[in-house]
């Protein structure tokens, strides 16, 4: 009801006064809320609104798409897959056996050519494929308390099977820490070493709040089966940034993790020599290992997806705006045209 707040009185007027008080006590109290008469806006999809909405979307989206695409194109990225090439030719038929054999392995030399000038900082990543760091059992296999706090070193109940050795609890315990990535990269240009800064590659909140300054590795990788890298037990966990980065489990089976930063510009066509310590076993599950050098833009790394998606949606909306404009021009439907009412469309309708 739009305006009539007072109901049409149907009562007998004679007996009004005496029972008025009693009446009002039972009568529902009038409020716009309880009577559902709150002022409301009732937006209607008129043709003008439809076309404006589509146009607005395309006007906003296409520039963003172009900007994103440019940002992505600005990023220079060098990707080098080395898991196969870094196995000595003699051992290539038995990759797994090669990687599982303990003892020092000859380092592997890779050469990379800079395709375009790369401004510092240049981020060094390792990329693993087909590595399910997001498997539930794997993700759960850690003890945050132990990492944070020296006194909870024995909180290892979640870490099985890597919870303790005969010497006591493992710090850091669990499968994630156990499988710490242990390939090493050394960079040089024309035999001049290229410094890789490994500080600040992890989240600050992790260093300060999740990994204790007084927690030191204990009994780590001392069991029968070695999963990955070993840790220097004299450095507190909060400074073991490789571990901190590794402990942030990746969301998808293909992932990159930050290895370090090269704080020096690289010129086009420069040749970088990478001395690679190939230690990490991805061969047992057909994983791939890649070395990635990448700059970043304001949007992040090299990824055209956002730009293309924005352009697609914006373009689609532009097309729809045009299409509906034509429809409304060619075959306009008057708003509130009564001939569209169901009882007018088929009179015999029951």
């Amino acid at each position, binding site marked *: 009801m739009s305006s009539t707040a007072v109901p049409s009185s149907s009562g007998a007027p004679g007996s009004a006064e005496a029972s008025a008080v009693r009446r009002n006590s039972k009568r529902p109290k009038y409020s716009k809320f309880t009577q559902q008469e709150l002022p409301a806006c009732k937006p209607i999809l008129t043709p003008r609104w439809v076309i404006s909405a589509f146009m607005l979307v395309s006007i906003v989206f296409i520039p963003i798409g172009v900007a994103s695409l440019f940002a992505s194109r600005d990023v220079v990225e060098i990707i080098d897959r080395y898991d196969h090439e870094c196995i000595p030719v003699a051992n290539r038929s038995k990759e797994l056996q090669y990687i599982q054999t303990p003892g020092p392995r000859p380092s592997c030399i890779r050469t990379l050519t800079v395709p375009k000038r790369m401004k510092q900082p240049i981020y060094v990543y390792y990329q693993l494929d087909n590595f399910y760091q997001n498997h539930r059992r794997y993700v759960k296999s850690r003890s945050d308390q132990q990492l944070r706090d020296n006194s909870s070193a024995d909180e290892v109940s979640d870490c099985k099977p890597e919870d303790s050795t005969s010497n006591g609890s493992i710090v850091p315990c669990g499968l994630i820490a156990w499988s710490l990535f242990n390939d090493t990269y050394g960079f040089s240009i024309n035999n001049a070493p290229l410094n890789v800064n490994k500080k600040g590659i992890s989240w600050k909140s992790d260093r300060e709040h999740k990994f204790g300054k007084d927690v030191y590795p204990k009994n780590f990788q001392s069991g029968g089966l070695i999963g990955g890298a070993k840790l220097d037990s004299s450095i507190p966990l909060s400074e073991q940034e490789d571990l901190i980065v590794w402990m942030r489990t990746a969301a998808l089976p293909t*992932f990159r993790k930050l290895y370090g930063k090269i704080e020096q510009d690289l010129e086009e066509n420069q040749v970088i020599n990478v001395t690679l310590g190939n230690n990490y076993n991805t061969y047992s599950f057909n994983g791939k290992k890649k070395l990635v050098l990448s700059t970043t833009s304001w949007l992040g790394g090299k*990824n055209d997806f956002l730009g293309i*998606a924005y352009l697609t949606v914006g373009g689609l909306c532009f097309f729809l705006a045009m299409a509906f404009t034509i429809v409304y021009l060619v075959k306009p439907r008057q708003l509130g045209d009564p001939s569209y009412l169901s009882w007018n469309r088929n009179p015999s309708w029951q």
Partner: protein
Amino acid sequence: MRESSRRTKRKIRWSKLYTFSCFRPPNADPDPIKSLIGRPGFSRVVFCNKPHLHRMKPHKYPTNYVSTTKYNVVTFLPRSLFEQFRRVANLYFLLAAVLSLTSLSPFTPPSLIIPLVFVVGISMLKEAVEDWHRFLQDIQMFDEATCQSVRARTSNLNEELGQVSIILSDKTGTLTCNQMEFRKCSIAGVSYGGDLNEVDLAASHRMNSDMVACSPNLKNLKIPDAHREYSIKGFNFRDDRLMDGRWTCNSNVYDITMFFRVMALCHTGIPIEDDQADKLKFEAESPEEVAFLITSQELGFQFCKRTQSVMVLKELDPDLGGIVKREYKLLNLLEFSSSRKRMSVIVSTEDGQIFLLCKGADSIIFERLADNGRSYQEATSLHLSCYAEDGFRTLAFAYRRVERADYEHWNSIFMKAKTTVGPERDELLESASEMIEKDMILLGVAAVEDKLQKGIWLLTGDKKETAINIGFACSLLRQDMRQFHLSSVMDSGCSNQSEVILVAKKALVSQIKSFSQEINEEHNKHMPFALVVDGQALEIGLRSDVKDQFLQLAVECASVICCRVSPKQKALITRLVKEFTGKTTLAIGDGANDVGMIQEADIGVGISGLEGMQAVMASDFSLPQFRFLERLLMVHGHWCYNRISKMILYFIYKNIVFGLTLFFYEFYTSFSGQVLYDDWYMTAFNVLLTSLPVISLGVLEQDVPSDVCHQFPALYKQGQRGICFSWKRIIGWILNGAVASLIIFLSTIHALSTVAFLGKGKVADIAHLGTITYTCVIWTVNCQIALIISHFTWIQHLFIWGSILLWYIFLLAYGALPPSYSHTGFQVLTEAIGGAPSFWIITLLVVVASLLPYFIYMVLQRTFYPLDDHVIQEMKHCKKDIFDKPMWLREQQNSKRTTQVGFSARVDVKIHHLKEAIQQRRESIYNPTQRCPSPVAFWSLLSLLGKLVQTQGTAHELDHPPT
């Protein structure tokens, strides 16, 4: 048609899964009732004077104590817990919560248990509040006279209010105010009293306004509506020949006196002292008796006292010309029953004469007249049919003088019958009363208007003819309807009872067959049909072997009137119709005899009127007046249906969007069960972050304003046809949810995978991906509801945009907790994603992209296939209802033509009648090719015109013949 309804009947009603009741066997046929007599739960065997037997095992009954609440302090906790976990969903979540305590679960226990406790707690709170105070407060449904408003006595039926296809109503008692008004009478062959009844009034009122609309010059001619204040309740009689004691001048004083005596004596009422000195109030079994008593008081026969054996009247004596107090000794009272359809009293006057005074249904009385008592029968019958045509209830009055010797003889028989104990008592009493109720002298008939409650459209009367006429008056029957009359005449000559039934059944089946054939004929496809069934035919029709055919016929008719129905039959019809059609049924009634029907129907509505509380106690909704049913169904039913179907569909959608992202993620975790979102995000989703907009949708959504719901009853068809909640829509929404979730998931993982997502070279881990995806989900579902809602008040805005804001607040607060509580959510917004432009850009992209399919669909639908509510919304939006009033009114008319619901429809019919009548009579007068205008025809035309002129001045009408 037949096949499809059969199929509906056969399939398991999945809607009942909610409370497991779909697994219960359906109610057995009511036939083996006899074997159940005496069994527990069906009937009780009571031992008189042996109360100790009742304390022993087979007869140990619970007390008759009636409780109006479901719980008390002690039973609340266990019973409400049981109520909660009786439901499949809650039980499922309980099991899930129990499982979460084991190591199998991917979730932490609190994240599953806390929402369950929350939901169950809220439901229990709601139960408690409802138990305490059930209410619904629409001021427009408040009854000023009785200070009662509508009460919703159950809370989970609201959506069915919008889908009612079949209304089963109690007869007159419910549909009328239960206030009888004495309107007309025919005494000694002369008809007295004549006034417009409500339908006439409204018709002339409407014609009035039509006239004004088309000819503004006539405005001044408008005569005020005849809304007179009736000073006396129950008495709406104007005739100068009888009023103010003027009847004493009439030539036929004796018959008139007797007529009033019957009126004042033949009843079971008692007078009540009132503060007004000379006027009394009365209480009686039926309101018509009250009306008679008031009338007789008004006309000079005041019934002032009743003792065990004496009734005292203050009579206006025509001979003495003053008021005389007379005592009548009440000798016997032959009670009214529905089978006898009459009641009599035997009184002896002060001078020792014995009279039998009888009132009853005309057909019954006419059978029992003496040969010399039929002098007025012809004239009276004529009047009677007039009254019935006007929709009045009629009663015939008769008397008989009994010789003392005859009386003594009869009394002994009667007393013997009365003191008999056993099943034959009724029969003996019946035959005894037959002996005395004969050779009567007809006095006349009285017509009472069963004052219609405002806005009624379904009635059945006692007499078939009356019922049909009233059916017309209420537009339950229309002129263009083909009527079928199912009746069965029991041949009483045949002695064998079963043979009679067999014959009757055969006749009925053949009737049904011929009617069905007619319906199925091609040219009748779109014609509305009406079915009128009388009590006996119904009794046979409901037998199990004819049942299906009968119901098939009944269902295909637009309206069905059943006359003379017993309470048990009412309940039986309700159940059969419900089961046979599978449609939502609503039963409405006010008396104790409607309880069965009310309980049997999907929705039971009780009228908290004058006939006690039994119906209200059994009902789901109680109304103070019948007319509120229109608002209850048309406005609240339509809204509730619309809201709840939108709400459920949206609920499905939002959980699909949410749930499928989790599922899609499993493809990337080798189905290990890793969860994309933090436990607390999952918990907050349905409880905190998306619940309030849904509530605002379910409570405040209005597709069209309430006055439009009234004006366009065809909108209600949406509910009956179930278009808001059809499989098409459900699947559509599921698809929409799946597409949206696919867009969200694929966009986020492609935008975030592998490469750095912010300038500092950091890459996203599970927590980041989860939080960003979750943000997109929250935005999408909340913006989606903004697209669904068509009625925004500040509450909706607050809830929708507040929910989105709340997510960021939640994220900030959660991130600010120490990492031992927030785990992966620690500083996730402040440190990581909040500062990344890609986070905001992804959100914008995903929200727009995931809403685009629905938006395009909506635009296409509105452009090419708009629904009724869309068009009406547009009309309202363009203010066409103000600028293009004729169109607006015309569409209202068109909308009603297909539905014919409500008071206005009745008024239309009446206008139609009146205009037709004028047309006919004018033709008969002015058409020279026909016979000469007789004075009678001329006068009748004048009187008819008088009716119209009284309210509007019809000179215009005469100049321009109505089209």
